[in-house]
């Protein structure tokens, strides 16, 4: 059998340690989520009841269907809340460890900033900044590689969407200066 058996090896120097302490347990998050969903169910249920959740001459009112759905959602989250509270006393399964949370934040915060920058400076500038910044700061990749990758990717996106497929993205002052 002819076969080249090269190994592909990729390391992950900033991998989260396995013994990192837990930040919060799954049970606690579950209780929190169920409370939020319950609040949502009550809010939406109230809004639908106000819109009209009963019957009139033409059939069910607009709020009828969603009103009963809010009740189902409320019931489900109430059950979930009780189940989570009961289970909470026994075992505490980890929702996220500190090392994992750090890594997740390392993606989430830049993504949040990216959305903010997109709103004011347009998507392409934000995209360039996100890719270059993320590669350099989080990935510790050489600056020129980061800048080049970011530029090439953003340029490809611009050509593909704005020019070839006519899908117009939000733009800011920078693109305006070039007449786009």
């Amino acid at each position, binding site marked *: *059998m*002819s*076969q*080249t058996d*090269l*190994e*592909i*090896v*990729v*390391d*992950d120097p900033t*991998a*989260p340690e396995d013994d990192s302490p837990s930040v919060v347990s799954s049970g606690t*998050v579950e209780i929190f*989520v169920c409370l939020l*969903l319950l609040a949502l169910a009550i809010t*939406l249920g109230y*809004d*639908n009841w106000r*819109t009209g959740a009963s019957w009139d001459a033409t*059939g*069910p009112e*607009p709020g009828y*269907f*969603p009103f009963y*759905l*809010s009740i*189902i*959602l409320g019931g*489900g989250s109430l059950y*979930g809340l009780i189940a989570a509270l009961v289970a909470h006393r026994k075992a505490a399964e980890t*929702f*996220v460890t500190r090392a994992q949370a750090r*890594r*997740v934040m*390392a*993606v*989430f915060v*830049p*993504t*949040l900033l990216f*959305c903010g920058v*997109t*709103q004011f400076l347009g*998507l392409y500038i934000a995209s360039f900044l*996100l*890719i270059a910044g*993320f*590669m350099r700061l989080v*990935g510790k990749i050489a600056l020129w590689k980061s800048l080049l*990758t970011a530029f090439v990717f*953003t340029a490809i*996106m611009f050509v593909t*969407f704005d020019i070839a*497929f*006519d*899908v*117009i*993205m*939000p733009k800011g002052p920078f693109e305006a200066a070039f007449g786009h």
Partner: protein
Amino acid sequence: MEALGLLLHGFAVLLTWKTLVLMMVGLVLGIFVGVLPGLGGPNGVAILLPLTFTMDPTSAIVMLSCIYWGALFGGAITSILFNIPGEAWSVATTFDGYPMAQQGRAAEALTAAFTSSFIGSLVAVLLITFLAPMISSFALKFGPPEFFAVYLLTFCSFVGLGREAKHKTVISMSLGLLLAGIGMDTVSGNLRMTFGSSELLRGINFLVAVIGLFGISEILLTMEERLALRGHAASISLRVVLNVWKDLPKYWVTLLRSSFIGCWLGITPGGAIAASFMGYNLAKRFSKDPESFGKGRIEGVFAPETAAHASGTAALLPMLALGIPGSGTAAILLGGLMVWGLNPGPLLFVEHKDFVWGLIASMYLGNVVGLVLVLTTVPIFASILRVPFAAVAPMIVVSCAIGAYAIQNAMFDIWLMLGFGVVGYVFKKIGIPLAPFTLALVLGNRAEDAFRLSMIGSGGTLKVFWSNGLVGSITTLAIVLLFWPVIDGLLARVGWTQRTRAT
């Protein structure tokens, strides 16, 4: 046969240079997406959907479905070479695929995986070709009560047959249905649940939610894990391929069994994940030598791959025939249909023959082309994994944002996507399934319309759902499935001897 003639017509629609090029592009993008960590079938399709907005529907669906086939093929590459299942349904493939790669039989394992995916899809496509037109012409007689009963059946079977905690499925589904109702009420024109916000007036777009739920949340989840990998690079020579194919007839029972399991679980919402495990376990149980499974047995690759792909493909059957998606990816394709201005449902087969048969023909063609493509390009795709995740992650984020924005040209949708990303991350970690949510969000409005129209027709009595034999039996079946765990328990207690009437 009529179906054959229409299928030939479908091929005629496809065989233009433009479509073939789009098909190749779709397949390459799909394999790419399947190989990359943190991306898979549904994410890939969702992210790349905006590319198709300006195309005509047939080209668009051909490209999208090819992305899907590509992603399915791509998932097998990482499972076998790196022991990293790209998707949950590739987990069973790693059991025997990775040991084979370790023994230096990676090429053989990959060939087996691709070939069996191809066979699985082929069986499912044959099923679609002949069954879908029949189901849809039957469904043309459906009125609103029948449609609502079918929707109810879909939702109930998710709750009753799903493996997750029941209340979590219920939460996920009712949340999806509720969010689908936000905005303008289609029947009365009233505003609902908008709380005075002009952004919510448009409602929550299904695709925006999907991009957030599957794209952004997947990036967050991937970052949590150790991203180091170590694997075998393999190229496939023609001789290996021919050797594996020569042995294929020996495994016909396994292949056929897995195809059937896959088709069945694909149409019902059991899904590809259950299908792949079931295929693997049954192959092991019926094997003369079950001990050798898990140590690099080629049947252990054939069985799960065939089942997973048969299931992934068969999930498109209810979508085409009834407008009800059988999987998350099918739900996204359905969302695509609506963007392109097509109305999913049984009328599709009557009103858009070109589209439907073009799609079915593209399933055949896409799988053949895909098989050849993966067999020849594995080394290139395997080396994609050398690209550091720190470069891939921000690019995926940008693609997600482009996708979310492009749907309605709304900045609000980018923020919404981010929100759904967080929701998806948290839900996945505490075990709230996302598939029912996706399904509910895409079907919500139509389920509600069907319900209200039947209520208006009947003057407000629920008896309309038992008004004739057809709708009555569907509704009853739905309720049986909803309480299936309870009924199953009861049946087990009486030892199957007594027939308990389940109502």
